[in-house]
C-alpha cells in the first residue's frame, strides 16, 4: 500500500502551512483536518475548510483521499472559516432569549410601563393566552433543539449568533411590549377571533412538531445521509406531498395564528419577515433536493403549495 503526501497551502497567500507525509490512502478529510490541527492548534477542525482548488468548493469531511482527483502528492488549500460555535448553543441562546424577554413584559417588571403598573396583570384574557402560546412555542423549540433535531453541520460562524440574537430578541421585545401594554386593545371580533387563532396556532404547532419528528426519523443517529422526506402515517406530514419544507409552512401558520390572536401589528411584521427568510431557506433546500435526487416529486414547491 502506497502512502500519500499531503501539503496544505493557505488559499489566499499560497504559503505552505503544513506538510504531511505517509498519509494512509483511505484517510478521510476529517482525519487530515485532525492532523493539520496538531501543527496549528488555533485552527480546530470545525474552523477549517480544505479545497482542491483555492476558490473551489470545500471538501466534505467524509471524502476519502484516494477517491479524490489527486496524485500521490496532494495539494490542499486551506481557508479559515473563523471562530465557530455549535448549532445547539446558537439555538439555545436564540430561543431562550425571546422566552425570557416576553415574560419580563408579561409580568410588567419595573421600568417598562411606569411604576403604577409594576407587576400588575392584564384584564384581558387574550393577553394571558398569548403568553402561554408564546412560551409554549419557544419551550417547544428549545426541547426540539435538545432532543429532536439532528444537525448535519456541527457548527456555524460565531458572528451569526449576534445577528440572530438581535433579530429574535429585538422582535420579541417589540411584540411583547405592545401585547402586554396596559393600553392593549383586545381583538376586534372578540372570543370568536381568539378561538379561531388558537386553533390555527395549535394545529400548526402540532404540524411543525410532526415534521421535525419525520425529519429526525429520516436520518439515523450519527449519520449524514440525505434522503427524500415522504409523508408518513401521521396526517400532519402529508403536507410533504405538496411542499419541500412543510416545517416552515407550519411555522408561518403558527405566527399568522398568533398575529390574529393578538391583533398586534408588530407580530404581523415579524410573521412577514420570518416568511421572507423561510422562503429563502426553503428555496435553497428545494433546489438542493432537486439537484441531489433525480426522482424528486415534481409536484412539490418550496414552502407554499403550488405558489412559492
Amino acid at each position, binding site marked *: 500500500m502506497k502512502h500519500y503526501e499531503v501539503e496544505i497551502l493557505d488559499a489566499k497567500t499560497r504559503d505552505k502551512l503544513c506538510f504531511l507525509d505517509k498519509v494512509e490512502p483511505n484517510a478521510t478529510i476529517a482525519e487530515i483536518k485532525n492532523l493539520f490541527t496538531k501543527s496549528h492548534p488555533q485552527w480546530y477542525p470545525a474552523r477549517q475548510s480544505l479545497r482542491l482548488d483555492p476558490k473551489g468548493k470545500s471538501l466534505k469531511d467524509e471524502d476519502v483521499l484516494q477517491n479524490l482527483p489527486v496524485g500521490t502528492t496532494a495539494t490542499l488549500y486551506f481557508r479559515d472559516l473563523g471562530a465557530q460555535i455549535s448549532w445547539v448553543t446558537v439555538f439555545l441562546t436564540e430561543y431562550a432569549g425571546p422566552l425570557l424577554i416576553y415574560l419580563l413584559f408579561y409580568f410588567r417588571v419595573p421600568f417598562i410601563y411606569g411604576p403604577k403598573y409594576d407587576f400588575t396583570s392584564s384584564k384581558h384574557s387574550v393577553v394571558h393566552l398569548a403568553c402561554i402560546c408564546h412560551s409554549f412555542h419557544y419551550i417547544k423549540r428549545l426541547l426540539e433543539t435538545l432532543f429532536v433535531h439532528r444537525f448535519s453541520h456541527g457548527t456555524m460562524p460565531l458572528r451569526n449568533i449576534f445577528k440572530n440574537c438581535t433579530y429574535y430578541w429585538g422582535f420579541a421585545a417589540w411584540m411583547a411590549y*405592545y*401585547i402586554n*401594554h396596559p*393600553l*392593549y*386593545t383586545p381583538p*376586534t371580533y372578540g372570543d370568536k377571533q381568539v378561538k379561531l387563532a388558537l386553533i390555527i396556532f395549535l394545529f400548526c404547532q402540532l404540524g411543525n412538531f410532526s415534521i421535525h419528528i419525520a425529519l429526525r426519523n429520516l436520518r439515523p443517529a450519527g449519520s449524514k445521509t440525505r434522503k427524500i422526506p415522504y409523508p408518513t402515517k401521521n396526517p400532519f406530514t402529508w403536507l410533504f406531498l405538496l411542499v419541500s419544507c412543510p416545517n416552515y409552512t407550519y411555522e408561518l401558520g403558527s405566527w399568522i395564528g398568533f398575529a390574529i390572536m*393578538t*391583533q*398586534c*401589528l*408588530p407580530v404581523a411584521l415579524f410573521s412577514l419577515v420570518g416568511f421572507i427568510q423561510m422562503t429563502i431557506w426553503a428555496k435553497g433546500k428545494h433546489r438542493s433536493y432537486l439537484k441531489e435526487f433525480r426522482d424528486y416529486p415534481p409536484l412539490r414547491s418550496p414552502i407554499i403549495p403550488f405558489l412559492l
Partner: protein
Amino acid sequence: MASSEEDGAGGGGSLEEKEKGRKRRLGALATAWLIGYNIAMTAGWLVLAIAMARFYMQKGTYKGLYKTIQKTLKFFQTFAVLEVVHCAVGIVHTSVLVTGVQVSSRIFMVWFITHSIKQIQNEESVILFLVVWTVTEITRYSFYTFNLLNHLPYFIKWARYNFFIILYPAGVAGELLTIYAALPYVKKTGIFSLRLPNKYNVSFDYYYFLIIVMASYIPLFPQLYFHMLWQRRKVLHGEVIVEKDD
C-alpha cells in the same frame, strides 16, 4: 442624505469609457427615454431656479417663496422616483438601494417635512436646501443628458465634481436645520404619530423618529462625502488621459 450628490442617482456613470460600453448594451429606446427624462428634469429644475430668482427680485424677500414654487418642486422631485425604477429595471447600472435611499430622503424632506409642517415653510433653512438642491440638480441632470448624448462639455463635468464640495455640506445643513425647526411643531401637534390604545396595538412617535433621522446623518454624511471626493479625483484625473486620446 438628500443632497443626491452620490454618483448613482441619475442617468449615467462617471467614466466615458464605461458610458460607451454601456450604451452598446443599452437599447436605442432606453437611451432615448433616459435622454428625454434627463432633459425634462433639467428643464424642470431650471424653471424652479428661474421662479425662485424672479420671486426674490420682485418681492425682495424669501418669505412666501416656498408657497409659490411648491407645486413645481413637488412635481419634479416626486418624478425622481423614476430614477429608482431605472436602476431596478437595469437601464441605469447603479445600486437600487443607494438610489432608493437618496430619492426617498428627498421625498421625505419635501412631503413629510416641508409640505406637512406648514409653520416652517418660511425658515431660512428651507431656502438654503432649495437653492442647493436646484443648483445640484441642474448640474446633475444636465451632466447625465450631455453624457448620454456623448457631448459632455468640460465645465459641466467640472461643475458636477466640484460644486458638491460646498453644496453637499450646505444642503445637509439646510435639511438638518429644517428638521430641527420642525421638532417643536411635531411634538405639539402629534402629526404622523400613532398613540395607544388603537386596534393595531402599535405606536409610532414621529418626534423621536425625526431625532433618529437627524442622528443617522452623522454616520452617513462623511461616508457619502468622502466617496464623492474619491470619485472626483478618479474622474477629473482620468479626464486628462481621455482627452489626449481623443
